[in-house]
């Protein structure tokens, strides 16, 4: 772009982004990730009190997610990239001649290019009485806070509007224990996306969940009620009474600024833009829901993202344009899968349709094809949306349909080849519409080395938005690896030509109890440091036999083999179990006395327990004997097994506690203690959504609400932090435990060796939804097995230290020398902060000591 190059070398081009919603933020992200980002300076204004958050996931706020969880960016991120941000200040004036803007607080900024990303506002129909105190809208976090507050004093709630957002909102009201109603003007729910059959099935399913649906209702007025706060009178003479009303009757583009300052807008609103997202002013762009392209407003996030990309491309001299967007959607509404593709209403001339209805399972599928049956025009899916991923590209790419198109929606028969796999898709097929990732993009990343699902997702972002395409991403990966002739070698090691999962199945089905047996029948050689601990762990998960038995001892790695964590000088740490971090004062005294007696360095761990360091091999049994006498048991800090269940104090003391988090944490810790798993795992239980136990960073996080427990899964702190995914809400104790039992056993069976639950989840084809189908719907028919396996482990639990102490033969190993009572002479420590073994001395100091030399460092 020769015309601006000179300017940019002089000083950066100043871009002002009005509105910091999802699309405004996407624009900024695209600028800062652009190779020439140094040529641009970005300032963004937001009238909301916080930076961009994920409005698509807004309803998650009701199920326990906090505003922080929903954030898409942070002040740190903007600071790091030199983006200036001003929140709680609305841009109120544009001076197009001077190229400046002024805010409500009087701030004036000049711009080179102005980007309007002002989004939309909820449409509130002009109904008399619609401005009453408890008549609300559903758009921002603040709106949700108002809804929650209003619900507290309400028994009945009505949502006006039976579209996607309206139904989400009705679900939220239902969850807030209100009698929830949906009032819709059209004859069916989700009238834009669904046809009559689909809408009817959705209605049945939603009514089954306890939400009342009223269609073809035109609200005439809202007046004072008799049994509730308000009465809504409908045009047909009927009425309902309600304490609160939420309007969710569509959106209107926020085009106020354009309107006031003479930028062209459409007849029915919306800032008119061209393919470059330019408005009628050559220095002003509009993107997202405020923009009108070809007479259309796009109320979805994906087209907004594409506009953001096009605008950045135009500013930076690229060639990407916005050329319209597909409005197909797939979502889960109140637990009901719903999808709509293309011409769902069969409005194309001559369109032919195929319908599949399964009343027993509540499934409705309709295929709309061209008159000659050669191409797909539209699809409606309710109850089962698995086909969405393959059908959408078929419609978009106008792919040739099979001779009998109905096979695309008929249930797959066992053994029948799937008619259309991902292999048939062209490279241009869009796989992830949230992040605009095509099949070609995925293939490029796979060729560049992202050969694991988790890597592929993190480098392309595919599957990390709504997650709906996660299974497709996995299928593309597998198909491409096969294409490349790459044999994916997941063999455990050179000794076993099986994956960990296959070996686990062998152990289970062939009832194999020892490593030697397994090696003889299914492996070769002597084994190694990879397969031995892995097999040791699997045997322990399934059979739960003593890890130091004659057969098992050879399999144990550094820590398990002496039931302690080896430190860098060869001494061990000792960690007794302090379930949920609850310990009596007497318990602390007992621990203190043992620590003093054996002169151990003492520290509180991150998992709410106490760690002793500096115990020599021969001291381990002595220390453990005293610990067990004092009522403690092993904490399994050395094992790939449950570490701790962290808890906050909960409702027994805390003013905010909703439930007794300590008791639940103790229950869980006592239940899963000792279970050997592919890697260590941690739990956390918080007594309320303030989340003091940081449960969402644990493999299993449990958070109390006023209606039960919310379960989060596959979180992680550590090297690559990951917030847990909300797996299920408002559970009672028994269901919570049942779900954790099942997930844990599924993880133990199917994870790779040393794979934490977070990576296991990221690698799972189908992701969270798949895990739910296995654990909640028992899709694989394995849940009973999982529970049996878990119960066997729980029933056979023994404290490994207690068992070891009772066996003199076993204790012989706990000596530095087999032929002498001497101890290792290469140990030396430095005192500090009141502890004599504050740290291990330098190797040179330890060496001097071993040689019998004076060690001045120690005398200081």
């Amino acid at each position, binding site marked *: 772009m020769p015309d601006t190059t000179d300017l940019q070398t002089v000083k950066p081009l100043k871009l002002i982004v009005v509105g910091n919603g999802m699309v405004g933020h996407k624009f900024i992200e695209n600028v800062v990730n652009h190779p020439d980002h140094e040529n641009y300076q970005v300032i963004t204004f937001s009238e909301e009190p916080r930076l961009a958050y994920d409005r698509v996931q807004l309803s998650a706020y009701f199920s326990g997610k906090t505003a922080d969880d929903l954030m898409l960016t942070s002040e740190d991120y903007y600071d790091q990239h030199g983006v200036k941000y001003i929140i709680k200040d609305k841009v109120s004036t544009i001076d197009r001649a001077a190229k400046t803007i002024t805010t409500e607080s009087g701030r004036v900024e000049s711009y080179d290019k102005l980007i309007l990303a002002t989004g939309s506002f909820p449409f509130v129909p002009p109904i008399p009485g619609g401005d009453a105190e408890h008549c609300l809208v559903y758009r921002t976090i603040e709106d949700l806070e108002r809804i929650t507050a209003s619900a507290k004093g309400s028994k009945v709630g009505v949502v006006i509007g039976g579209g996607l957002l309206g139904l989400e909102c009705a679900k939220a009201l239902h969850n807030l224990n209100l009698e929830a109603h949906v009032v819709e003007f059209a004859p069916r729910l989700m009238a834009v996306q669904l046809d009559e059959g689909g809408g009817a099935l959705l209605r049945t399913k939603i009514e089954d969940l306890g939400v009342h649906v009223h269609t073809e209702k035109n609200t005439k007025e809202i007046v004072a009620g008799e049994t509730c706060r308000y009465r809504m009178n409908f045009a047909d003479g009927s009425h309902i009474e309600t304490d609160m009303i939420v309007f969710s009757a569509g959106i209107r583009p926020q085009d106020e600024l354009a309107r006031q300052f003479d930028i062209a807008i459409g007849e029915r609103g919306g800032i008119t833009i061209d393919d470059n997202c330019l408005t009628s002013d050559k220095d002003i762009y509009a993107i997202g829901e405020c923009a009108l392209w070809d007479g259309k407003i796009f109320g979805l996030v994906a087209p907004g993202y594409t506009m953001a990309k096009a605008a950045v491309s135009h500013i930076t001299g690229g060639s990407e344009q916005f050329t319209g967007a597909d409005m197909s959607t797939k979502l889960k509404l109140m637990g009901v899968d719903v999808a709509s593709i293309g011409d769902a209403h069969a409005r194309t001339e001559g369109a032919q349709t195929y319908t599949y209805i399964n009343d027993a399972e509540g499934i409705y599928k309709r295929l709309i094809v061209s008159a000659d049956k050669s191409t797909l025009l539209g699809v409606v899916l309710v109850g089962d949306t698995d086909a969405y991923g393959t059908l959408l590209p078929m419609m978009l790419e106008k792919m040739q349909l099979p001779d009998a198109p109905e096979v695309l929606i008929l249930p797959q028969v066992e053994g029948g080849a799937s008619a259309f796999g991902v292999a048939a898709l062209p490279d241009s097929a869009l796989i992830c519409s949230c992040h605009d990732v095509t099949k070609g993009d995925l293939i490029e990343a796979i060729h560049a080395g992202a050969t694991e699902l988790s890597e592929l997702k993190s480098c392309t972002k595919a599957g990390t938005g709504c997650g709906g395409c996660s299974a497709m991403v996995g299928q593309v990966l597998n198909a491409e690896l096969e294409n490349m002739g790459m044999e994916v070698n997941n063999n455990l090691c050179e000794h076993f030509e099986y994956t960990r999962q296959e070996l686990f199945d062998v152990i289970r089905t062939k009832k194999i109890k020892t490593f030697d047996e397994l090696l003889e029948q299914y492996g070769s050689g002597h*084994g190694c440091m990879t397969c031995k601990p892995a097999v040791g762990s699997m045997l322990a998960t399934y059979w739960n036999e003593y890890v130091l038995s004659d057969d098992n001892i050879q399999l144990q790695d550094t820590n398990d083999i002496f039931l302690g964590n080896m430190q860098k000088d*060869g001494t061990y740490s000792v960690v007794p179990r302090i379930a949920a971090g609850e310990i009596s004062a007497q318990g602390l005294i007992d621990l203190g006395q043992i620590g003093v007696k054996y002169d151990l360095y003492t520290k509180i761990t991150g998992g709410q327990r106490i760690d002793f360091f500096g115990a020599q091999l021969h001291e381990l049994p002595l220390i453990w004997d005293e610990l067990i006498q004092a009522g403690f048991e092993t904490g399994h800090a050395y094992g790939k097994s449950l570490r701790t269940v962290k808890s906050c104090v909960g409702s027994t003391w805390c003013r905010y506690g909703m439930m007794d988090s300590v008791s639940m944490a103790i229950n869980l810790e006592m239940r899963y203690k000792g279970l050997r798993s592919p890697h260590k795992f941690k739990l956390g239980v918080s007594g309320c959504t303030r989340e003091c136990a940081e449960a969402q960073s644990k493999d299993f996080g449990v958070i109390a609400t006023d209606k039960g427990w919310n379960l989060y899964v596959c979180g992680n702190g550590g090297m690559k932090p990951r917030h847990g995914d909300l797996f299920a809400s408002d559970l009672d104790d028994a269901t919570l435990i049942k779900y954790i039992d099942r997930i844990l056993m599924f993880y133990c069976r199917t994870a790779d060796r040393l794979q934490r639950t977070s990576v296991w989840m990221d690698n799972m084809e189908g992701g969270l939804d798949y895990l739910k189908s296995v654990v909640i719907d028992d899709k694989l028919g394995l849940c009973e097995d999982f529970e049996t396996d878990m119960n066997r482990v729980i029933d056979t639990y023994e404290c490994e230290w207690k068992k070891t102490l009772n066996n003199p033969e076993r204790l012989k190993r706990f000596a530095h020398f087999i032929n002498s009572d001497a101890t290792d002479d290469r140990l030396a420590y430095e005192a500090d902060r009141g502890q004599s073994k504050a740290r291990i001395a330098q190797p040179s100091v330890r060496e001097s000591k071993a040689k019998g030399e004076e060690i001045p460092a120690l005398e200081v």
Partner: protein
Amino acid sequence: MSNINWETICNVSDINKNTGVCALHNGEQVAIFKVGKEEQLFALQNYDPFGEANVLSRGIIGDVDGQLVLASPLYKQQFSLESGKCLEDDSVILKTYMVRQQDGLVQLQA
């Protein structure tokens, strides 16, 4: 052979199969390992030159491409049980010791 003196360390049965023990031998720490059904014995220095600690007797035994190895419990370098050679670093060779089974006893060459 008869000139060689052997020092008895322990019973063969004192060593669990496929694990090691540490012996104090002429003032040195020696790690002794018992491998496989044949109960083959190997002896290496107990000192781990990478981790700088006396811990090798507590490592895990295995084979790599048919060669019997010991993995250090600290940082997992592998050493040939036969030669003491480090697989990850050619320049490091552990001291090896002559070890044998005699009448159910483990003996190191004196």
